[in-house]
C-alpha cells in the first residue's frame, strides 16, 4: 500500500497556508518547524512511493492519480493529475530531500529576520509549486508549477524588498523568465492544436505517429527549449541568475542552484520523446548548453562575489546538463542534475555559512584564512568543491563523465563539443579552487572588527549531510566500464526516450575509448586544481600579474562579456526610445486621437439623441406606449 501522491504536494501547501495565514500566531522557531515538518512529510511520502515503485512490475512502473477536472471549456478538458514514475521520483526526492535540508538550515540562517514567517511561507509555496511541476501528468499543470516557482523565485529574490536593487533583481528574473514562458505557452497551444491533449504520456505515445512533419516538432521543441532557456538561465537568457543572488543564501541554494533552475532540464527529459523527433533542436540544445558551460565558467574565473562565482558555476553546470540532454543522454543529464543539487546546494549553504560568519561579507577579496575559524564549513566546502571539480570517487565525477561520454558517442569521437566540455571541466576546477583558496587559505583580509565564527549546528548539520550526499550520490550511477551497474541509468531507461544515437551503441567495443575520455577529463580537472594552487597559494602575486598581462580577457570575463550592457544597448535602450516615440507621438496623436475622436463622436451623437431624454416621465411613458402600439399593430396586422 502506497500513500496517495497528492499528499506530497498537499503537505507543503498546508505549511504555506499555516505560515502564510496564521504566521503571526507562531514563534519564529515554530514557523520553521512547521515549514520543515511539512517538507519532511513530503520527503517521507516520496521515499515510500519510490520504494513502492521499485517493487512494481512492468516495463515502465508508475503511479497515476487524476484529481479533478481542472479546466473545462468546450472541447478543452484538462485533468489535474499526478504521474509518479522513476523520473518524477528522482526529482521529488531531490526537491524534498535537498529542500528539507535547506529548510532546516534556514531556521539558523534566517534567525532574527522580521520576515521569517513570510520567508517560510514562500519556501513552502515554492516546494509545493516545484512538486507540482515535477509530478504533473500534463503540460498545463506543469506550467502552473513552472509559473508558480517563478513567482516564488521572484518573491524570494526580492525578499528584502526594502533594498531597491534587490527588488529590481527579482523583477529582472521575472521579466527574463517571461520571454522563455512565451515560448512555452506557444508550444503548448501548438501541441494542443495538433494532438488535442496536453497529457504528457498521451503526447509521448502519439508523437511518433503524428502526421505533423519534422518542422512542427522542431518548432515546438525549440519553443519549449526557449522556455527551458529562460528558466534554467542558459545563454542568452542567463543574465537574471547572477542578479538573483540578491535573495537570502538558502534561497539561492534551493531555488537558484538545486531545483528550480533545473526545471528546464527536467522539462526536456520529461518530453524526451518529442525532442528526439527533432534532431535540429537537439543539436541546438547541445551547442547552447556547451557554450553556456564554457562562457559561464570563464566568467566565474574573475568574479569577486562568492555567490556570483557560484551563480556562474551553476549556469555552467546547467550548461553541462543541457549538453547531456542535447546529445540524447537524458539519464546522464538527470543524473548530473541530482548530483549537482547535492554539491551545489552544499556549496551555496557553505557560502551562506561563510557570509553568516563574516557578518554579511560576500567579497572573496575580503576573506581568506577562514579555515581555522570555520572548520566544519571548510571541510564540507572542500568536499563540495572536489565533487564539482570531478575528482574521481565523488559524485560529480560520475555524472560529468557520463555527459562527456555521451557527447563523445553522439559525435562519434573527439568532437569540438566534447573538447570544450573537457576544457570547461578544467576551468571549473580552477575557479572552484580559486574560490576555496581565496576564502579559506592564505592571509586573512577581513577587517579587524569581524570575529568569524562557526555557524550553529542547525546550519552545519545540513552541510554535513549534503557533503555525504555529494560523496556518495554518484554511486547510484557508476558506469559499467568502472565495474558499476549504472542503476540510475537503468532506472530512468523506461521513462526517457532512447536516443537515436544510442548511448549503448557500440558500447562494449569502445571501453577503451571511454576510459581514455575519462582519463583526459580527470587530467584536465587535476590540471585546473594545480594551476589554481599555483596561482593562489604558491605565488600569490601571480594572479595580479596575470590580470595585468591579459587586461582585455580579464575585463571581458569580469564584465561578463558585456552581455548585460549589450542587452541594455540592443534591447532596453531601443525599447525605451521606441516607447518614448510611442508615448509622444503614437499615444498622444493616434491613440488619444482615436479616443478623443470617438468620445467627440459619441458626444455629438448623444447631444442629438439627448433631445429624447427630456426628463419628463410622460415622454418616456409615451415612448413605451408607442412601442406597445407598434407591437399591437403588428399582431393586429398578422
Amino acid at each position, binding site marked *: 500500500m502506497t500513500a496517495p501522491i497528492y499528499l506530497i504536494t498537499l503537505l507543503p501547501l498546508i505549511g504555506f497556508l499555516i505560515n502564510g495565514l496564521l504566521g503571526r500566531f507562531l514563534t519564529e522557531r515554530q514557523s520553521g518547524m512547521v515549514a520543515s515538518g511539512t517538507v519532511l512529510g513530503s520527503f517521507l511520502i516520496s521515499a515510500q512511493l519510490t520504494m513502492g515503485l521499485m517493487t512494481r512490475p512492468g516495463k515502465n512502473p508508475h503511479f497515476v492519480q487524476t484529481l479533478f477536472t481542472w479546466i473545462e471549456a468546450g472541447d478543452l478538458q484538462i485533468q489535474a493529475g499526478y504521474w509518479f514514475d522513476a523520473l518524477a521520483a528522482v526529482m521529488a526526492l531531490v526537491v524534498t530531500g535537498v529542500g528539507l535540508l535547506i529548510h532546516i538550515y534556514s531556521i539558523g540562517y534566517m534567525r532574527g529576520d522580521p520576515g521569517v514567517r513570510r520567508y517560510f511561507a514562500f519556501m513552502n509555496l515554492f516546494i509545493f509549486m516545484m512538486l507540482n511541476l515535477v509530478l504533473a501528468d500534463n503540460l498545463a499543470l506543469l506550467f502552473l508549477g513552472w509559473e508558480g516557482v517563478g513567482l516564488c523565485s521572484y518573491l524570494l529574490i526580492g525578499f528584502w524588498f526594502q533594498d531597491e536593487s534587490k527588488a529590481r533583481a527579482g523583477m529582472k528574473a521575472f521579466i527574463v523568465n517571461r520571454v522563455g514562458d512565451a515560448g512555452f505557452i506557444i508550444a503548448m497551444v501548438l501541441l494542443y492544436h495538433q494532438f488535442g491533449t496536453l497529457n504528457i504520456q498521451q503526447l509521448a505515445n502519439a508523437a511518433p505517429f503524428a502526421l505533423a512533419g519534422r518542422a512542427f516538432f522542431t518548432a515546438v521543441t525549440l519553443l519549449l527549449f526557449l522556455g527551458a532557456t529562460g528558466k534554467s538561465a542558459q545563454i542568452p537568457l542567463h543574465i537574471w541568475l547572477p542578479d538573483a543572488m540578491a535573495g537570502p543564501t538558502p534561497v539561492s541554494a534551493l531555488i537558484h542552484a538545486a531545483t528550480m533552475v533545473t526545471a528546464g532540464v527536467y522539462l526536456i527529459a520529461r518530453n524526451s520523446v518529442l525532442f528526439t523527433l527533432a534532431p535540429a533542436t537537439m543539436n541546438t540544445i547541445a551547442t547552447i548548453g556547451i557554450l553556456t558551460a564554457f562562457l559561464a565558467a570563464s566568467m566565474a574565473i574573475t568574479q569577486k562575489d562568492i555567490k556570483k562565482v557560484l551563480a556562474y558555476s551553476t549556469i555552467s553546470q546547467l550548461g553541462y546538463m543541457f549538453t547531456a540532454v542535447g546529445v540524447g543522454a537524458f539519464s546522464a543529464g538527470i543524473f548530473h542534475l541530482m548530483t549537482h543539487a547535492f554539491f551545489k546546494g552544499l556549496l551555496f549553504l557553505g557560502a551562506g555559512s561563510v557570509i553568516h560568519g563574516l557578518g554579511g561579507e560576500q567579497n572573496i577579496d575580503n576573506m581568506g584564512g577562514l579555515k581555522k575559524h570555520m572548520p566544519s564549513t571548510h571541510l564540507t566546502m572542500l568536499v563540495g568543491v572536489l565533487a564539482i571539480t570531478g575528482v574521481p570517487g565523488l559524485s560529480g565525477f560520475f555524472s560529468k563523465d557520463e555527459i562527456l561520454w555521451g557527447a563523445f558517442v553522439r559525435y562519434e569521437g573527439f568532437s569540438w563539443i566534447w573538447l570544450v566540455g573537457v576544457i570547461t571541466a578544467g576551468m571549473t576546477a580552477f575557479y572552484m579552487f580559486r574560490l576555496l583558496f581565496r576564502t579559506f587559505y592564505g592571509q586573512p583580509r577581513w577587517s579587524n572588527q569581524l570575529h568569524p565564527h562557526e555557524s550553529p549546528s542547525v546550519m552545519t548539520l545540513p552541510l554535513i549531510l549534503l557533503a555525504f550526499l555529494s560523496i556518495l550520490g554518484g554511486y547510484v550511477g557508476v558506469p559499467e566500464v568502472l565495474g558499476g551497474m549504472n542503476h540510475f541509468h537503468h532506472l530512468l531507461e523506461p521513462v526517457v526516450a532512447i536516443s537515436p544515437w544510442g548511448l549503448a551503441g557500440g558500447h562494449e567495443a569502445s571501453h577503451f575509448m571511454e576510459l581514455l575520455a575519462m582519463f583526459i577529463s580527470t587530467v584536465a580537472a587535476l590540471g585546473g586544481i594545480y594551476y589554481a594552487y599555483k596561482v593562489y597559494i604558491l605565488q600569490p602575486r601571480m594572479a595580479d600579474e596575470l590580470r595585468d598581462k591579459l587586461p582585455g580577457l580579464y575585463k571581458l570575463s569580469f564584465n561578463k562579456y558585456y552581455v548585460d550592457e549589450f542587452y541594455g544597448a540592443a534591447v532596453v535602450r531601443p525599447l525605451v526610445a521606441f516607447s518614448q516615440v510611442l508615448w509622444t507621438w503614437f499615444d498622444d496623436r493616434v491613440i488619444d486621437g482615436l479616443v478623443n475622436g470617438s468620445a467627440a463622436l459619441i458626444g455629438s451623437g448623444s447631444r442629438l439623441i439627448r433631445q429624447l431624454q427630456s426628463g419628463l416621465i410622460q415622454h418616456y411613458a409615451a415612448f413605451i406606449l408607442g412601442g406597445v*402600439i407598434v407591437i399591437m399593430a403588428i399582431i393586429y396586422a398578422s
Partner: protein
Amino acid sequence: MTTALFYLFAALLIGSALFVVLNRNPMYSVVALVFGFANLAGIYFLLEAYFIGALQVLVYAGAIMVLFLFVVMLLDVKPDKPRRGLVHLDRWWFAILVVLFLGLLLGIVPGAVRLITSVPAGHEADIGNVERVGQALFTSYLLPFEVAALLLTVALIGTVFLAKRKI
C-alpha cells in the same frame, strides 16, 4: 338584475375613473377613485370573487387610497395650473397615441376573447370564497406568498427610511 347591476357598476367605474383623470383638484380625484374602486368591488362581487371584492374595499379603498388622501391633504396639493410652454405641444401626439392605443385594444382584445369563449370552459364551484383562494395561496402559491410578505416588509422599512426627515 345582475346584468343591469354590472353595467351600472361598470358605467360608474368608468365615469369615476375619467373624473379622476380629468378634474384638476387632486382631492376630488382621490374621492372619485375610492368611489370607483367601490364599484369595482361591486363588479368583483357580481363575478363571484367575494374575497377579492372584500380585499378591494379593505386594501385599495381602505388602505391604499387613505394613504393617497393623507398625502394630498398633508402636502396641500393645489389644483393644477393650466399648461404653458413647450410641454403644450406634446398634448397632441399624446392624444393620438392614446386614441390609437384604445382603438387597437378594442380592436384586438374582444376579438381574441371571443375566440377564447368559443371554447367552453370548465367550472368549479365556490371559486370566489376565502377558503378556495386561501387553499391556492397556501399550497401552489406558497413561495410567492412568502415573497410577498417579504416585499411588504421591505416596503415598510423603505418607507420609514424615506419618510423620516433625519435618520
